[in-house]
């Protein structure tokens, strides 16, 4: 595999990761009662997000959104470790 092909593969996988993250966030939102989706929930630094807002952050690929998506991914990995 050439360097170019490797980079293309990485980009393709990054896109898959983002799709997975969006799907994780959608699944998570679906689990929450409707009235809770707009309630302040997640606090980091001086910011507070509702579940709907943090989902938007993931969609928009912001720094907070990327970190949150990574957390869901890490949770998936941790669950997989436990199922081994």
């Amino acid at each position, binding site marked *: 595999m050439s360097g170019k092909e490797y980079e293309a593969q990485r980009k393709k996988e990054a896109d898959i990761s983002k799709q997975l993250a969006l799907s994780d*966030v959608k699944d998570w939102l679906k*689990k929450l009662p409707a009235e809770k989706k707009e309630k*302040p929930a997640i606090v*980091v630094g001086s910011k507070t997000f509702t579940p709907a807002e943090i989902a938007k952050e993931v969609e928009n690929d912001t720094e907070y959104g990327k970190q949150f998506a*990574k*957390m869901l991914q*890490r*949770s998936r990995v*941790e*669950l997989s470790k436990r199922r081994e």
Partner: protein
Amino acid sequence: MPEFARIKEMLSIPVLIKRWRIVKSKKVLIIRPNCPGDNYTTLFSFPAATLVKNKAVAEGWTVTDLQGNNCSRANVESNINTVKPDYVVHYDHGSDFTLYGQNANVITPAIDDANVNLLAKRAVSTVSCESANGLGPLAIAATSKAYLGYDDLHWVHLWYLDKFNEASNAANNALLEGKTFQEAYDIAYAKYTEKWAELVGPDPGAAGLLLHDRDHLTLLGNPSARAHGLKIVRVP
């Protein structure tokens, strides 16, 4: 008894051992801002630090508790210099090179690279963002015994504050009980995992935050160090 013989006897090892004891020094300084309108401090870190303060009192520590606007840089510096705490506990915002305090209801740097020497010879623990990246290593270079903090953002979830309190306080509680920094780190790691496992089914989004905090808890310095100090006291 001639003077010389009397002094010689006073300085003899058996007499010194009989008259002086090495005992634990248990002085803790808690720094906990409480900025109005700041959800992290008012809803999470300030109340979480109350639980740690209660634990410290129960474990026989002498507590100096700096709250809210008493956490100005000048007041933090003056208290460290006068109280000479063995253990400095901080709950609030942090960044790579700064632990924040509060002055006139605004967060303001309390300890940073300019006054990190205040942490020399002391045990340090902070529940805040990022300071294990920069200030922590500086504190260790300035001869702090050990430094426990986070090397990334510290996230909390308002709907499950009991779980976040329990996990975030686990290391401090263990240190207050006399455990080593390594033991305290291991206990906190296990507590974060336990709380994650409780939440991952019902609310995977909230659970993910606990896992993130767990994975960014960072221990610097001597893992065998303990939070208490040692002092020599004269037996009456």
